[in-house]
């Protein structure tokens, strides 16, 4: 299953709902293009909802890091929402769990940007 992305706005925060796989090739590219487009529209408060992402490989992890650093460099912030156990475990063993701000409740996650 390839990756699908849709975006929505909640109180000035762009929530990016992702589903499928973030892997080398299509998934990583889709995520990268989405983040670039959002930054191009000055939408710099980004909440990546990974609740329906069932698989991420090392390229996908790299893409999350890239998105995070790109947004931060432009004065914005990118947080993660609703990690599945698999993705949570991956971020734990790569020590990235402490790098990203990870949320499990959308309303409080949105509020945390303001």
């Amino acid at each position, binding site marked *: 299953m390839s990756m699908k992305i849709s975006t929505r706005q909640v109180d000035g925060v762009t929530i990016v709902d992702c589903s499928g796989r973030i*892997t*080398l*090739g299509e998934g990583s590219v889709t995520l990268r293009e989405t983040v670039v487009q959002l930054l191009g529209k000055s939408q710099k408060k980004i909440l990546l909802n990974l609740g329906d992402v069932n698989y991420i*490989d*090392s*390229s996908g*992890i*790299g*893409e999350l*890091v*890239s998105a*995070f*650093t790109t947004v931060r460099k432009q004065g914005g912030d990118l947080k993660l929402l609703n990690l599945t156990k*698999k993705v949570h475990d*991956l971020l734990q*063993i*790569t*020590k*990235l769990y402490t*790098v990203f701000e990870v949320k499990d409740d959308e309303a409080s996650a949105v509020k945390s940007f303001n």
Partner: protein
Amino acid sequence: MFQTRRAIPRIFAMTDSRFSYTLDSTLETVDTAEQTASRIAADAGFDEDEVMRISMAVREAAVNAVLHGNAYDPNKKVRLDFENRGRDLIITIRDQGCGLDVSRIPDPLAPENLLKTSGRGIFLIRSFMDEVQIRPSQTGTEIQLIKHVHGPSAGGKEASREHED
């Protein structure tokens, strides 16, 4: 399942416990390697989490072979061997690249490397498998991954033997 098998272009040898494939240096090969590993690991009796770890390790090794080893060169192939030795599942991936110097791969857990966008593949492979050997082969680099069978079917056999005793 049948689609996965059809996607594999060339089968060198196939016995009950050994499968060997030669694949092109493409992204499709990466997916094929992952799917094949997933099927073989499940058949070997590993549980769902272990199947995911094994298939991800094989995917990462295949990525290394296709991208970093063979650099997508259409004239170079990736050789994939799966062998079930009862207590061990042994997977070997060979490329025809210029070689991989593992000592030059930075530690992805070092604070200065945490925000790097690449360099986690070998680390993940080592995290998910019981034994990992990376060595030069006659044609490029060979990486051998070993997972000890602790899955339900292996445990079930042990349990039933104990019961019979």
